[in-house]
């Protein structure tokens, strides 16, 4: 089968690999019909995540058709079109039972601090991902959800990560009616976080980034205020001024390890790897939120350390809330939002690229070329 093959930082190619097999009675094999490149895939692509092995296939956002099932699978049948959440979750451990599907304890042997994620290094379980024609999907009765017949598959593929993560970012913000919410990052997650902040009753939504075309996009898509931090001497001071010298009620870090905007963070985090990526967005979020405010973190960082103003967290009495999105928990609500027209995920898709051109697709997304917001990869066997 054809699959994305990681060869090293900023080097990937489409290659032929063996077909995946059922390795456990609760497995399914899914033929991928659409997969996305996620902003967090870029952390792998840039070599920022430890234990990212050459030869691995990335991709944690994919949908497809069930081609084979293990002997214990009961809820799926061959031929089902399924949304596959990016979390691999057993459904039985203490964490899954409490709906923390992103923190499953029975799917990632390599690390206890991270749940398992498809195609996201061995630090996240060592599973090959969905930027391929076929994928092995463990615990098939737990995560995969049959796509409703009325749903556009372009919407469905975005329910695997970007929409739930954006929604949970807003949810974790504990937004009260009328709150001012600042979202750092106008990538796909930031765009959805801004859109979802309104669903929780935000009174004002502000998005900060340094890429003009993305700011223009989110301004229209999520009807929010946008500012380019490159035009500011001090983004935090600017944000304080426009929030009545009080600070935002809620700040959302939707950037993570690849943040720009601070030379010290960039050099130590992205160039020298002395910290787990650049924590500029989180730094600004902590300093821009009001005293007693909430900082919601969905931006992905590596597993080592980051430079953040933790003293300000204490002195301002902040609450930091963070997690990988619990996709399975959120799917019913999000499907309802799409059916009712409250969310239009496919509106963020700007590029559809054949899987054979995966190297170019990564480069375009990583370098923010051609006004790219969200890229969907189409495997050759998708139309089978």
């Amino acid at each position, binding site marked *: 089968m054809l699959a994305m093959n990681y060869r090293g930082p900023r080097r990937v190619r489409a290659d032929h690999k063996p077909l995946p097999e059922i390795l456990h009675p609760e497995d399914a094999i899914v033929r991928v019909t659409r997969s996305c490149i996620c902003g967090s895939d870029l952390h792998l692509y840039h070599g920022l995540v430890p234990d990212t092995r050459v030869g691995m296939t990335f991709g944690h956002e994919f949908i497809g058709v069930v081609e084979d099932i293990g002997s214990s699978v009961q809820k799926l049948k061959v031929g089902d079109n399924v949304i596959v959440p990016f979390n691999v979750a057993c459904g039985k451990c203490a964490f899954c039972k409490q709906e923390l599907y992103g923190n499953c304890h029975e799917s990632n*042997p*390599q690390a206890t601090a991270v749940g398992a994620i498809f195609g996201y290094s061995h630090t996240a379980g060592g599973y090959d991902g969905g930027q391929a024609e076929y994928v092995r999907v463990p615990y098939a009765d737990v995560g995969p959800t049959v796509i409703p017949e009325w749903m556009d598959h372009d919407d469905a593929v975005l329910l695997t990560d970007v929409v739930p993560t954006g929604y949970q970012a807003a*949810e974790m913000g504990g937004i009260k009616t009328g709150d001012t919410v600042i979202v750092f990052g106008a990538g796909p997650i930031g765009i959805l976080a801004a859109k979802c902040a309104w669903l929780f009753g935000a009174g004002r939504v502000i998005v900060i980034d340094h890429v003009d075309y993305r700011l223009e996009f989110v301004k229209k898509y999520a009807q929010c205020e946008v500012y380019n931090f490159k035009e500011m001497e001090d983004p935090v001071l600017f944000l304080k001024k426009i929030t009545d010298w009080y600070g935002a009620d809620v700040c959302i870090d939707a950037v993570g390890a690849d943040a720009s905007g601070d030379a010290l963070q960039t050099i130590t985090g992205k160039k020298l790897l002395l910290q787990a990526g650049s924590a500029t967005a989180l730094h600004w979020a902590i300093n821009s939120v009001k005293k007693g405010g909430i900082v919601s973190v969905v931006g992905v960082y590596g597993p080592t350390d980051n430079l953040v103003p933790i003293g300000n967290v204490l002195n301002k009495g902040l609450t930091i809330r963070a997690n990988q999105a619990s996709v399975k928990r959120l799917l019913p609500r999000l499907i309802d939002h799409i059916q009712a027209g409250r969310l239009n995920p496919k509106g963020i898709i700007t590029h559809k690229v054949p899987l054979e051109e995966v190297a170019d697709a990564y480069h375009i997304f990583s370098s923010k070329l051609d006004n790219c917001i969200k890229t969907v990869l189409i495997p050759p066997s998708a139309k089978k």
Partner: protein
Amino acid sequence: MENTTNDYSHIIGWGFDADPTNEPTHPMKKYTGDDHKRLNYERSVQQPLTVEILHSNERPNITAVFGTSTPPSGLSGSIRRYAFKHSENEYLHWLPLLLADRVNVVEGIVDDLKRGHIPNIFAEKGWKAKWKHNPKGLALKVATGVALTALVFFRPKKSKAKKA
């Protein structure tokens, strides 16, 4: 609040202010008290171990299922095995893994060549797309590369001339 089997009746006021709704992870977490059962839940059957799996020493066993992509091999595999002797709390876990990743890149090129495949590194880096959408950027990158290479080659000659 939870199904604890311990008897705290000898502690005056124990649990008086316990409030199940005071759950800072709500609504991300549906509190059930299962945390207090620790690892005593019903596990799925164990996936057969068909490849080498390195597991965190912060857990007692391998998870019921696991990924089988790219098992450790070669020099990078040895470095990874060393890394997994240290907990996730230690730099000696993560920094060797980053080193192993870089060593693995060289191993990947050697493996390609062994299989008779000469990797097209420019294509893998997506330079076709860069040429299409950002030709100026590509030209600048190439020019910078040429200039740096020239600098490296010209420097030693200058120092030799001085010595003479």
